[in-house]
């Protein structure tokens, strides 16, 4: 299960430079595609591979590409979403740091398939170092004839530009990203029309995540059918998982889809178990937006079958007892973590990051933050638990973009699985008000000691 196809070369010194990358087989897929394949054939391989969007939604990439309006006379654009800002997610940053050329290579292939001659990489403003790395990689690729006019002597020309954001989570949403790229506030657009028809400058546009576009490289190298053999079921290929929180070995790992959650969590090859010999309490498997899972639903599903790292297995049981693979932001909580405090923290994040366009999200996230803060600091009221649950449910599905859903799910799932913690906070204000983080046991001990 340890096959690597994106990070297989990270151990090679100098792999971030064009020369070393090229000497190790880099850009071979571009030669293959541009000289021996038509754009439609490249798209076909991506369809066959079963590749799904790695930014969080998991939408089939080949299908997304096939929606591109090819009848339009306007230019087409490919935009790479490197606005990585989902809490718990730091895989794209890692990929850019280590092997920037695999992204450039993937962009050339994808632009060729889509018929785009200008491609933008939208990088979050905080990643200044990564902006520098990408610009250097682009210069190197251009100097070596892989970008610019008539690449490798073919009729295909491509320019790639890096565009810097300036600090806004919402710009990771594809239409907000396009607005931002046009020099505006990051307010998501109403859909339809979808970007495939009216995207950047009202032209047909595809927006894909960094990891998705990088994955096109092994797909073209090995063929879509071979790629589809990796992984399990409809979760084909490998996935970059960024693991953080209370674990021994936080970091970015490439896994084959279908690896068991238990192995990922406890094997020394990956997370290496819970830090400081503590017990596992909860897991957010796919970035802050996805539902939190309590310890008994992490390595096993509600049906007592092992849970795997795949789109399907992580969502098994729906939101009652499952979650989502999302962006692969794997956040692990140990027994001392306070779920109430963490839920408040996440809602503060969503309140801060809401663009303010839709009332349910703009107002709802603010109320959630306030009421959760009240509970966390010992001023909660008995009816507050149902109140936050109901506010969250009123945001979900009622907003232009998915930030509303993303803000609602952590609250609904925390109340569903950890209601007792919220109740304890409300029943024992004198204990919780002075403790930021602590298990229920710790709180209870403090309560007993105080008596």
């Amino acid at each position, binding site marked *: 299960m340890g096959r690597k196809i994106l990070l297989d070369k990270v151990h090679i010194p100098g792999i971030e430079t064009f020369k070393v990358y090229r000497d190790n087989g880099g850009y071979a897929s571009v030669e293959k595609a541009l000289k021996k394949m038509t754009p439609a054939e490249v798209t076909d391989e991506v369809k066959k591979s079963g590749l799904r969007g790695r930014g969080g939604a998991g939408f089939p990439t080949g299908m997304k590409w096939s929606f591109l309006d090819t009848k339009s006379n306007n230019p087409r654009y490919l935009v790479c979403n490197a606005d990585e800002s989902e*809490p718990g997610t730091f895989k794209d940053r890692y990929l850019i740091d280590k092997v920037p050329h695999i992204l450039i290579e993937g962009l050339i292939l994808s632009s060729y398939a889509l018929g785009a001659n200008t491609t933008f990489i939208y990088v979050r*403003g*905080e990643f200044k170092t990564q*902006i520098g790395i990408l610009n250097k990689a682009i210069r190197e690729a251009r100097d070596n004839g892989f970008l610019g006019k008539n690449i490798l002597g073919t009729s295909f020309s491509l320019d790639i530009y890096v565009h810097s954001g300036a600090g*806004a*989570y919402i710009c990771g949403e594809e239409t907000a990203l396009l607005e931002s790229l046009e020099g505006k506030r990051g307010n998501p657009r109403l859909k339809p029309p979808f970007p495939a028809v009216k995207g950047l400058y009202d032209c047909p546009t595809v927006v894909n995540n960094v990891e998705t576009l990088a994955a096109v490289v092994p797909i073209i190298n090995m063929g879509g059918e071979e790629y589809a053999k990796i992984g399990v079921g409809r979760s084909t290929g490998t996935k970059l998982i*960024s693991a953080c929180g209370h674990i021994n070995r936080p970091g970015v790992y490439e896994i084959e889809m279908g690896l068991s959650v238990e192995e990922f969590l406890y094997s020394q090859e990956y997370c290496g178990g819970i830090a400081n010999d503590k017990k596992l309490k909860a897991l957010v498997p796919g970035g802050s937006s996805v539902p939190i899972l309590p310890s008994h639903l992490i390595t096993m599903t509600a049906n007592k079958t092992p849970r795997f790292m795949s789109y399907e297995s992580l969502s098994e049981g729906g939101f009652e007892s499952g979650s989502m693979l999302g962006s692969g932001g794997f956040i692990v909580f140990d027994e001392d973590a306070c779920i109430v405090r963490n839920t408040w923290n*996440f809602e503060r994040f969503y309140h*801060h990051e809401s663009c303010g366009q839709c009332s349910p999200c703009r107002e709802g996230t603010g109320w959630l933050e306030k009421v959760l803060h009240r509970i966390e600091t010992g001023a909660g009221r008995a009816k507050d638990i149902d109140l936050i649950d109901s506010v969250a449910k009123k945001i979900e599905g009622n907003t232009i973009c998915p930030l509303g859903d993303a803000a609602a799910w952590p609250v609904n799932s925390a109340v569903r699985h950890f209601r007792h913690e919220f109740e304890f906070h409300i029943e024992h204000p004198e204990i919780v008000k002075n403790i930021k983080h602590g298990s229920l046991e710790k709180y209870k001990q403090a309560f007993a000691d105080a008596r």
Partner: protein
Amino acid sequence: MSLGNKIDHKLYEKEGLEVRFSDETLARVKAIKARYPKEREKSALLPVLHIAQEELGGHLSIEAMDYVAGLLNVQPIEVYEVATFYTQYYLEKVGKYVIEVCQTGPCAMCGGEDIADYLERKLNIKTGGTTNDGLFTLRKVECLGACGYAPVMQINTEFYEFLTKEKIDKTISDLTAKANEEKSKDSKWVEKFF
């Protein structure tokens, strides 16, 4: 607002500054504009505001924003609405080093909140404030996208990871020494990377 950063948009108070990019910077702006289709020069707004912030005093004064509006042929209000939307544009004077401490979940559960408290005490300023010597501004920010290396802070272009009090002490004293040594401008990331 909830992170305690001072947000006091003085959008109508001009600072009486004369602002203008150097010829070199103007050439860079021209190159950036050329990345986007004609008539779509507004696309250059975010990158050019980054340059303006770096070149014209570390924050975006009204004068700087009006100047950028002129360069990109857009209305000043179009610049203001963008400058107030994105957290990385500073609308008030900031110190030479802007310390941004991540407060979001994964950092918070690994001590990010204590790191911010410690910095407030150490620098003797509140979040949003700047030290009297003009060296450090302290801000609390949301997710910096480096969760596996928590707790994390960013100072200008640099990330500082797996923070401890000792690491912070060293960082602050190193930066203070560096500032005292070279009174010249901070390394220009725009020049290096754009």
